[in-house]
């Protein structure tokens, strides 16, 4: 028993040594787009940890010990919300033993609270698959939403770290200007995409469709979160003859196989889109994310 305890203390002493002393605001970003946004707005005043990568399905993350440990010492958690992280974030929050980042505290930020939600269901039943009662949570596919979230996040960062408030404000103003310019450019670039019909793998693009005026004719998943059956795929092929789509799109984290299968049979391109920062080599930051997304869509639609 004694040896067990002394072993424990020894371990503790070792771990305690690894704690670095730092003053920066520690931010736990649930998805890469928010990690990138916090870096834009926080610069050197923040220490950002991004909990997931572009190759992970943000619906299905395991509440790993490393995430709990990181959340324990965070000053701010930035989540998408709208139940995107319902399968893992509540456990992390509860296990983190960190009062500062509990929902209702300033240290908890949900991006979906600051944009207009699309596809809010009027009724929810699991027969409909993986539905989100608060609406489609993939808000980052519309670049305009990034600015809306940035405005709110800027205020939150200033509130949590008032000594650096002017720095946050300056970085936000700078970012907003660059973003407005980029939005003009992207919207100009995307004009030929208006009305282009496509097939998506998952119902993950509602905001992008809305933003760029694209039209989703069907999804490979028969219901959100339900993998495609052979019967559903052949149904899509039949539908393609009557209502031809120009391309099949899928996110970097999704299995390309079903999308490529369908695209080959239909004789249209299958396009991998980054979905978030880091999803493709070109989508290294937030600007690259939309540059690359629009570029890939234009290429696939023959423009």
């Amino acid at each position, binding site marked *: 028993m004694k040896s067990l305890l002394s072993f424990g203390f020894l371990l503790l002493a070792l771990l305690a040594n690894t704690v670095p002393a730092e003053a920066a605001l520690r931010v736990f970003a649930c998805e890469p787009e928010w990690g990138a946004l916090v870096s834009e707005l926080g610069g050197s005043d923040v220490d950002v940890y991004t909990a997931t990568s572009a*190759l*992970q399905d943000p619906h299905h993350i395991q509440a790993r010990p490393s995430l709990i440990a990181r959340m324990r010492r965070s000053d701010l958690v930035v989540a998408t919300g709208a139940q995107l992280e319902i399968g893992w974030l509540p456990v992390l929050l509860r296990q983190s033993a960190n009062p500062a980042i509990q929902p*209702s505290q300033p240290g908890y930020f949900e991006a*979906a609270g600051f944009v*207009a939600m699309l596809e809010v269901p009027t009724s929810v039943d699991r027969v409909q698959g993986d539905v989100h009662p608060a609406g489609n949570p993939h808000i980052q596919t519309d670049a305009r939403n990034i600015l809306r979230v940035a405005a709110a996040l800027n205020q939150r960062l200033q509130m949590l770290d008032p000594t650096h408030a002017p720095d946050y404000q300056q970085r936000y103003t700078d970012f907003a200007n660059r973003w*407005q310019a980029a939005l003009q450019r992207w919207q100009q670039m995307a004009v030929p995409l208006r009305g282009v019909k496509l097939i998506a793998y998952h119902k993950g693009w509602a905001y992008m469709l809305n933003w760029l005026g694209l039209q989703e004719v069907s999804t490979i998943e028969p219901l959100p979160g339900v*993998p495609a059956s052979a019967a559903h795929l052949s149904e899509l092929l039949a539908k393609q003859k009557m209502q031809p789509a120009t391309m099949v799109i899928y996110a970097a984290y999704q299995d390309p196989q079903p999308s490529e299968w369908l695209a080959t049979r239909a004789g249209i391109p299958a396009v991998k889109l980054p979905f978030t920062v880091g999803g493709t080599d070109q989508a290294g930051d937030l600007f690259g994310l939309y540059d690359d997304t629009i570029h890939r869509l234009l290429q696939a639609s023959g423009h």
Partner: protein
Amino acid sequence: MRKQILAWLLPCMLVAAPVAQAASVETTDELKTLKEQVRLLQQKIDKMETRLQASEKQPAAAAPAEPVVQAAESAQPQNTTRSDANVFNPQISMVLNGSYRAFSHNPATFAVPGFALGDSAGLGDRGFGINESELNFAANVDNLFYADSTLSLPRTGGINVEEAYFQTLALPAGLTVKAGRFFSGIGYINQFHPHHDDFIDRSLANRVFLNSTFAGDGIQVRWLAPTDTYFELGSELLRGDRYPGGGAALRGAGSWDVFAHVGGDVGFSNSWRAGLSWLSTKPLGRSSFDNTGAVTGTFDGNSQLLIGDLVWKWAPNGNPYDTNFKFQTELFQQQEKGMFANAGSPAASYSGRHWGGYAEAVYQFTHGWDIGIRHSEVFARNTGAAVVPGSVLDTLGFRPKRTSLVLGYANSEFSRFRLQFSRDQSRPVTDNQVALQYLMLIGAHGAHQF
């Protein structure tokens, strides 16, 4: 519009008020009706307002080519939290669980030579049957507390309170306190409800040493270290009436334990957690049972259990959705010393040393399908006057073991089927077992721990 209606209502209320004060029973009733009407009106107004707001937002979102300047600036931070599962109601879920089991030997004769078993160490009966259905309620109580209760409805009727605890959310310094009835944090699998498992039943070692699940009424304190490597220390003080304890010794605080967990990631694809736990109980008149429910003996003394556990998970790029792999093992060492009374005999001295463990590997080879293998062994060395030939403490020089193979299919996170084959050599016969199980989850689906 809201103001207009209110302006109109106000005089009505003024007229109504003195009348109500004159106070016959009828007028108070009228007042109630009026209040109810006002409330309903208010609801209607609120609804209309939200609809109006929504329709105001719509055009901004629906005009794709508009420059975003105004839209972005008019979006005032609303700070709405949208993740609460059911506004003020607790999350409610129910797990329905049924199975068909076939045994090549009569399960009534199940025993593990050398072990005085608790009442839930067996495998149940042959044939069709529903297992315990679990009803779970959980919610944040307020800004400081979270509460969780799981009731199980056994097929024989009645209600068992499996868990009913509250937990702190906002203690400083990485501390979390849990109090009530809860599954103990010792070992790895013990804290989970069976619907989380990858196999239909718990391992032979878990059933022998922890009576399938070790729970208790009491208090738990955990401390999470402020380090980037996950490190957690915990301790529990429990009533001590649950196997391997018994009789609620020491004025109802007969069991205590400590545990430590360490964990981390290796690259993007691997993550792990390891633990060490120590459980000490003072059984007082602890009965042991055979698989028909008959008492095989009574134990008074001390029981100590050491558990080492490791779980390793692999998911390509940290994305477990399509394929993933999990390895899990727990090793047990138990020491018991005291007086054991075989059924119908007087108490006599008994000292036992027990070892055991299991290891399992589960591979999800494609979305929805997984296959797993588990092997478990236990071993006892008992001495003392109570160890008479033919009694439960007689090991027969035998090493009980069991190997299981499982195939699982999940249509979604909420529906699951399992087919399990086991070669059970818990007693000196080879019992071939087949079990088919369904699990159906309705209601809110709480997130699972690692």
